[in-house]
């Protein structure tokens, strides 16, 4: 009996079985790319940071990292079977399950695949029910599934413009409204938007960039030792995913614990006035419009302090999150050859210098 060329337990006798879930590569086993990892974790700790856009070249592990994130997230509680992952629902809500039992589920990380149609993203009328019973029933879409979790869009620059607009509207308001066949549904859709893209595939609209709290840049690793480590781990994982996962479980568990502790702590992290002042000054110096820059800076700095088990944000926290929090908010100057991140760093040093002087005098 000849063996199939690509073996998969899911594919038997030509019948379509749901594929066995392919295990994710463990988050803690990802080599390098610290900025991306930090940005993702900060968003886990405080979702109000407003998501992250990851820009980088092909083959640098963007999707791997986002999908890996799911496995280090703590579980959340919801009403069992609620399509919107809600913890509390109003009495008489027709879309809620009839009971009030709770269950714990992993924080959802929902993939928005390219080619997704608007009806699947926002939800639509259940086509099967309409066909067979002639009744109208709302069928929730990806936005419902992503409520209280993460929505991941790979290759944001290839997404249809109209879909991007819909997503941004929902992300901003936290509510998804669907009108179809005379049915009107409004449900919560609060999620952390994670996007990834390749700068060579074309530019992103500035309005779109601005909506992401953080902007991480990743590059090809050029350190030989690190690259060898990537190859080694990848091979080990491909050869035996389960054994690999087992070997990394202690690190995964430790990170999970750390995240839970940070989530509890973050609301109480103190933001000293001088740090806040410094954030404002930095934004002014860089000519960042609006106040989103300062807000993101402050939240990210607090989340970082919480992640490291501290109760107070410092200037150093600010320094460490300044680049991803601001690099996409600078005014674009076509003749500027300095990298935006570099400019943020320079301004940061200037501001901190002024800060130190004012303190010593």
């Amino acid at each position, binding site marked *: 009996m*000849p*063996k*199939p*060329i*690509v*073996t*998969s337990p*899911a*594919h038997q006798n030509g019948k*379509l079985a*749901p*594929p066995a879930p392919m295990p994710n590569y463990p988050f803690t086993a990802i080599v390098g790319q610290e900025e991306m990892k930090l940005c993702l974790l900060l968003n886990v700790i405080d979702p109000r940071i407003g998501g992250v856009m990851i820009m980088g*070249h*092909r*083959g*640098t592990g963007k*999707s791997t990292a986002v999908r890996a994130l799911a496995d280090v997230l703590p579980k959340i509680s919801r009403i069992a079977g609620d399509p919107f992952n809600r913890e509390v629902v109003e009495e008489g809500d027709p879309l809620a399950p009839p009971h009030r039992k709770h269950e714990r589920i992993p924080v959802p990380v929902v993939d*928005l695949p*390219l*080619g997704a*149609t608007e*009806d*699947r*993203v926002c939800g639509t*009328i259940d*086509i*099967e029910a*309409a*066909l*067979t019973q*002639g009744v*109208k029933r709302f*069928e929730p*879409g*990806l936005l419902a599934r992503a409520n209280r979790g993460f929505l991941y869009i790979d*290759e944001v620059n290839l997404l249809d*413009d109209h879909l991007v607009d819909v997503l941004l509207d929902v992300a901003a308001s936290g509510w998804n409204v669907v009108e*179809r*066949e005379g049915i009107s549904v409004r449900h919560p859709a609060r999620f952390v938007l994670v996007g990834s893209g*390749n*700068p*060579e*595939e*074309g*530019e992103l*609209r*500035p309005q779109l960039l601005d909506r992401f709290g953080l902007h991480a840049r990743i590059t090809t*690793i*050029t350190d*030989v030792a690190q690259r*060898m480590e*990537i*190859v*080694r781990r990848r*091979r080990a994982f*491909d050869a035996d995913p389960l054994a690999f996962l087992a070997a990394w479980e202690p690190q995964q568990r430790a990170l999970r614990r750390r995240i839970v502790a940070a989530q509890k702590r973050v609301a109480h992290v103190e933001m000293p006035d001088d740090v806040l002042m410094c954030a404002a000054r930095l934004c002014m110096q860089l000519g960042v419009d609006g106040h989103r820059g300062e807000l993101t800076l402050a939240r990210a700095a607090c989340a970082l302090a919480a992640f490291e088990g501290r109760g107070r944000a410092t200037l150093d926290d600010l320094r460490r999150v300044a680049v991803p929090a601001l690099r996409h908010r600078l005014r*674009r100057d*076509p*003749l500027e*050859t300095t990298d935006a991140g570099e400019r943020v760093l320079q301004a940061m040093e200037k501001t901190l210098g002024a800060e130190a002087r004012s303190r010593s005098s």
Partner: protein
Amino acid sequence: MTLSFAEIVGMDVAKQALLLLAVNPALGGVAIAAPVGSGKSTLARAFAALLPAGTPFVELPVGATEDSVLGGLDLEATLAAGRRVIARGLLARAHGGVLYADGLNLLDERAIAHLIGALSDGVVRVERDGLSEVHPARFLLVGTYDPVEGEVRRGLLDRIGLIVPLLPQTGERERAEVVRRNLAHPPNGDAEDETTMLRAMIADAREHLPTVHIAEEQMQALVQTALSLGVEGNRADVFAVQAALAKAALDGREAVDDDDLKLAVRLVLLPRATRVPAQEAPERRERETTPHAQGDQPGDPNAPAHAQATLEELLLEAAVVDLPAGLLDLPFAGKRRGPGGSRGAALSSRRGRFVRAVAGDPRGQRIALLPTLIAAAPWQKVRRAERNVGACLDVRREDIRVKRFRDKAGTLYIFVVDASGSMAINRMREAKGAVVRLLQDAYVHRDQVGLIAFRGQQAQVLLEPSQSVERAKRALDVLPTGGGTPLASALLAAWRMAQQARARGIAQVTLVLMTDGRGNVPLRAAPAAPPSRAEIQAELQQIATCIRAEGIQAVVIDTQVNYLSQGEAARLAAWLGGRYVYLPNAKAAQIAMTVAPR
């Protein structure tokens, strides 16, 4: 009529790559560059025949619609059965077998995106038509493309483990053999035996693969070579290691040897090279590689550091030997000259093809009748109950689907910048600023910008039409200036770029010429006597008239200081039928404003 794998003459590299893929599916696929009529599809079919009986072989046609690639609701079956019936797409149908794509470079942008998704996740995610499905889609991709028709999108190529660059022209004798074998068909017994043998070899090698050993030093040599060749991303390292392992397994060896590494460099790393490694003095290289060639094992604990350096050099050397002929065909190399593709070539060449139907307002757009009826169909039962009307079809506004043709192409701005003479540095800087500014404003319009500079003997394409600010900046960073003014050559290059853009469906082309208009280098090879001014002017006029006849818009920005000008630039503008703007100290913002549509 099909030839067996063994009977196919030539294409040895491609055949070897396919065998490696059969042994090690972790390589993802093989991309083969080959001209029309070189027997690519015969090869793909013959390859599939090597695999166990019943292995799916699915063809991904260039014009495949999103529906057929991804799959979706089978409306007919759904209506008949009264429950949803799902039609699997091409990617899912290739699961467990071979997906053959002839014309990798001609696939629609979205089809490419789905293909990339399947290659990296092993599944197809369908979120459309009220369906939410995940279909397994692990397959061996065999893709071919004719480089003359443009490049393959890099994101796709990046996920295909093995890349076979343009196959060398087959020799006379081989050609004769090809014909003979084709005539001699049906196959003789030998060929059948060979097929059986190859099958057994593949099966053996697959079994054997997990136990093949690769030394740390060998892995390091591959990684180091990838770095030296400027390979982007870290995926290629993994592919290179997998390719070397597959080769060793195929040869029935327990451990990877130097030849395996060389093959990995040739099929994985070299095609992804973005730069040519610095050549060293040949004597030095020879001296260092000799001891190794004599059988010094890289794992030898006595001289590990030395052996490593040597091994890497050996690989690089092999790569460099391979390079010269194929250098211009390196699909990953940044700048490309002459005709050939560009990023945009990834779009289908069939201009204005109806791609898909989307919900929308029918005013000013074309209604897609069938998709509209399909959209309305499922709701008939509900609506009939609601309105209590007869058996007529109830189509509502929200059902209406309008046709979307290929993503609306914007304008291509071709900047042609004079890099000769003393003012060149200034001009280049401002041109660069204008290019980047246009690109940044261009997102909504999907405009593209290309850039041609000219100095010395001829014009040079610095940037093929692109939407990427990053690429533009990188292309413009270094440019030598000074020397003669080959204006005619520049105009010709611009005309070519415009032609290629048209072939991809970008109808609107605007030429932005920044020059003083004083061409002094003729197009044709310099004759004995230096050409007269009149000859050069005549040449310019000829090309300019051609450009005008093509309906290409032109703007001539005269950068000459006033008192020196003799009206050359203005005259050129008149020949081109374009606008003439006098901006001796043009600033980036001014240029962008002048050029952009008002």
